[in-house]
């Protein structure tokens, strides 16, 4: 029974990774937001399943928070933002996409290797998820590095949060509730602040291209 659910979770994990890759390769902002939403949904599903399998009730709450925050609220905010700021055009990347993908594959291999000895220790059904979570985090990191606009960068940041959350729920069956609430609160507040920022930046620079934000440096 457990192995069956385990397989589902692994499947979802694979989906998460796939979505990460998709985000890495995606040029359009709107699609990025949608992919992010999908990632949130996968996360929510996997959390719920883990909660079901392990009987950890607080994980249902986590799933709920995920649903609310990452599937509904944040994408909504983002959609609203890009409407308000009128930025729907394509995202330019700093490194071309095939190269990024290649680096991404290397990263996945690297994180799987890292996680391998740990996964073997895991008593949970979801032994391989830690590697996937790590890969997701690193891929999101890579995405942040390669994007030159503010919104995709933020989406990358949130996607990283997803990877972390996935690690927390599936690999360890969730952190203590207080912590999860705190994390959720931080993410929320962070988003609000980001929103404020976007407007401020937009107001100042007439653009959300972060290449404008390269004045402070050593010369």
């Amino acid at each position, binding site marked *: 029974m457990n192995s069956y659910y385990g397989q589902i979770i692994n499947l979802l994990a694979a989906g998460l990774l796939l979505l990460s890759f998709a985000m890495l390769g995606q040029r359009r902002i709107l699609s990025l937001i949608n992919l992010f939403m999908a990632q949130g949904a996968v996360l929510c599903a996997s959390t719920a399943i883990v909660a079901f399998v392990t009987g950890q009730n607080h994980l249902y709450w986590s799933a709920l928070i995920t649903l609310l925050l990452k599937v509904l609220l944040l994408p909504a905010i983002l959609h609203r933002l890009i409407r308000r700021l009128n930025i729907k055009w394509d995202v330019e990347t700093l490194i071309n996409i095939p190269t990024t993908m290649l680096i991404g594959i290397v990263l996945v291999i690297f994180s799987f290797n890292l996680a391998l000895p*740990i996964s073997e220790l895991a008593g949970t059904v979801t032994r391989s998820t830690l590697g996937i979570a790590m890969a997701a985090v690193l891929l999101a990191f890579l995405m942040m590095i390669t994007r030159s606009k*503010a919104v995709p960068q933020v989406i990358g940041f949130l996607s990283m949060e997803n990877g972390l959350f996935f*690690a927390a729920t599936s690999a360890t069956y969730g*952190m203590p509730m*207080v*912590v999860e609430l705190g*994390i959720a609160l*931080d993410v929320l507040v962070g988003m609000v602040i980001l929103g404020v920022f976007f407007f401020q930046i937009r107001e100042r620079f007439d653009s959300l291209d972060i290449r404008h*934000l390269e004045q*402070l440096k050593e010369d």
Partner: protein
Amino acid sequence: MEFFLVLGIPLLGGIVLALIGHTRRAAEYNALFSLLTLIAAINLTVHIVNHGPQLLFQDQFFLDPLNVFLVALTALVGFTTSLFSRPYMRIEHHHGRLTVGRLRLYHSMFQMFMFTMLLALTTNNMGILWVAMEAATLTTVLLVSLYRTTASLEAAWKYFILCGVGIAQALFGTILLYFAAEKVLGHEGGALLWTHLNAVKGTLEPTVMSLAFVFLLVGYGTKVGLVPLHNWLPDAHAEGPTPVSAVLSGLLLNVALYAVVRCKVLADGALHSNLAGVLMMGFGLLSVVVAAFFLSRQKDIKRMFAYSSIEHMGIVTFAFGMGGPLASFGGLLHMTVHSLTKSAIFFAVGHATQKSGTQLMEQIRGLIKISPTVGWGLMLGTLAILGMPPFGVFASEFLILTTAMKQQPWATPFLLMALGVAFASIFGKVQPMVFGESTLPKLPHKPAMLPVFVHLALVLMLGLWIPPYLAEWYRQAAKFIG
């Protein structure tokens, strides 16, 4: 009770000032709340001194020699900063750089920041520690961009993204830590409580712990400003209002380093090797050397002292990485004196830049003529931060360097070089600012120099005489860190 006041007052202050922070007396309220926090913190400290380490609220909070002195220090610097910011922000307001609304934001966020710092220090839960650190970033990010100038927005953006990403790594580290602890402590057995972890650290899985420590180090290290994770730091310090620079440099870095040290204690216990120490020494040394070289090309005074903070954090990290009672003692002392001195310097710098209307050092000249107190405050603060006795920074550097000579002699040439370069750069720039002729008229308003000289007096005292109970804390904390 003593404890909850310490957390409650700033939280309450944050909320109250969010409502009335725009009124004419807001700055006084801000100072009042800070004063109350300080009193509560002193009260708590006395309590802990008398009764020993304590676990509170179902073990969720923990007070031991390591954090209680940081609590006291944080409350003190918070209070003096609020004193300094009272005239400072008022003048900024008069100059039209700030609106009333932003003053409200400032006052409220200042208190919230104090709250997050104190929370991060006192919590026993590694998860809450993370939450508090993240919250500290969030509260200050809007303060950094308070002026809404191009540069301050850029700085705040970088601060937000870099620290956010960094702290995300720390979260991953925390998850890994939990992953390792869960095996030993069970799911609900407080597997994230530091005291519990500390008790069983020897049995934690080394493989996981090593990975966890790397993530935690990179994560919290970003907030400490360790090279090469430091890039947000100079921007944020230089572009934010000066009181914010003072608390960032004097408090936030300390608290982040505190988090790293907590993690190091666990990693040391689990790994049975000096891996954590070696990593910290490496980061510390790299920070010291690179920051020292950064110093020489600075034009902006606050930016320069921001790099100096990186350098000093590097020294402390190096000391903690080296370990041993003397080095750890030196590290703790250095944390204390650095935050006192650096915030004092920022206070003096604040007045100087406000007067000159620029942060460019080339345009600030002959401060000693414009205002002898500001001039001497900046001069003495600079000398103190450069490790000139009889100031306390020297005492800690003395302990750290001599211990390094004994334990890690390979590192000493780098330290010697870095300290030399740092001295040449900082002193070479500050000297003509303080001395020499000036064409500027005398300061029209009286600068709030009391905080500066109180800090410097404390630093001076620590160089010549460390009160026995303080020394005892340090010693116990140092034993703890190992």
